[in-house]
């Protein structure tokens, strides 16, 4: 198991000029980077981050698009993997943070939490490359090679859960921009809007 904050610090060293959809790693990534190419959307509707990443990667083939998704999102939208594999954007790097629970609702386990091999599922859906990592040193060693090769690639990362159980209305808001402003800022940076 890894700590999400630690693996994001490792990733940041190799990010380059990629667009980063911070997804389930958002509250940690915003401490590292919050530029117009960082896309902290929160959770517009669960299960959709992979679709958003696909759409953005297809629209911007000259930019690497990095997504930090989750196992709960994948389980909710497994069919997206087939769509991504069919479109096969070479600039799309799909990481998932697998903490085995629904962390923002109190830490209830996802179905069959300890026995689902998400990399195998991605490979079966048609991703040409897929990896599993549970150790930070192994992830750190492999990451440069993963990012240098073309996508789409799927990388499943076992992370410690960071469970929240306070009522949603009482939680500290970590995002500094609303999701719609994040999208507008990105379009401005890309000079498409």
């Amino acid at each position, binding site marked *: 198991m890894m700590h999400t904050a630690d693996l994001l610090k490792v990733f940041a060293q190799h990010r380059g000029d990629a667009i980063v959809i911070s997804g389930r790693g958002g509250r940690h990534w915003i401490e590292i980077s919050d530029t117009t190419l960082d896309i902290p959307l929160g959770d*517009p509707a669960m299960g959709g981050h992979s679709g958003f990443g696909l759409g953005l990667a297809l629209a911007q083939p000259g930019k690497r698009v990095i997504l930090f998704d989750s196992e709960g999102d994948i389980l909710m939208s497994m069919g997206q993997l087939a*769509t991504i594999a069919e479109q096969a954007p070479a600039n799309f790097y799909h990481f998932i943070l697998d903490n085995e629970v629904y962390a923002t609702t109190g830490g209830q386990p996802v179905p069959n939490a300890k026995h689902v091999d998400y990399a195998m599922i991605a490979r079966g859906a048609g991703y040409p490359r897929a990896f599993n990592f549970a150790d930070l040193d192994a992830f750190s060693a492999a990451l440069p090679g993963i990012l240098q090769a073309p996508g789409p690639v799927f990388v499943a990362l076992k992370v410690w859960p960071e469970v929240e159980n306070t009522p949603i209305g009482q939680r500290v808001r970590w995002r500094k921009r609303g999701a719609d402003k994040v999208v507008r800022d990105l379009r401005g940076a890309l000079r498409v*809007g």
Partner: protein
Amino acid sequence: MADAGALSPETVMRQMKQNGVTDVVWLPDSETNWLFLLMRADPDLRLVGVTREGHACSIAAGLFAGGRKPMMLIQNTGMMESGDSIRGWLMGLKVPIVLMVGYRGYTRHGVNSDTAATYTERFLMAFGIPFYLVENDGDADRIAIAFKEAEALQGPVVVLVGDEYHGFNR
């Protein structure tokens, strides 16, 4: 080719091109295969097939964020199943987009035996999403109006394709 009283796929395709659609995110329904063949033959149009209609919302949002002009093509059954994705990914991110929605069960007479039709307009009214009904080629200008309204509202606008009784697919 459809008869003069029907909505022809060529008309829909023409409207898509005139309104600058670059990508169609879609899931097949019983009425759109002929349109699919037309779209597939167009090298300037990218088709993104999904396995569940709600997935189309976040894909479309990502395409818009990256500068494309997507359209969604789904059936009313899938639209209703996609409620939270429409709310979060299209309305929440203020994505100007037209959803062409096959109006399964629509009979034109207000009497139907298909609850997919019964709840379609009620669903749209509950979400506050503007919608236009097109039944034949004479209604084609409503598609252009929908595109303009989506831009003005910065949100989704639905075109209900109510041509099942004609057989849009033929």
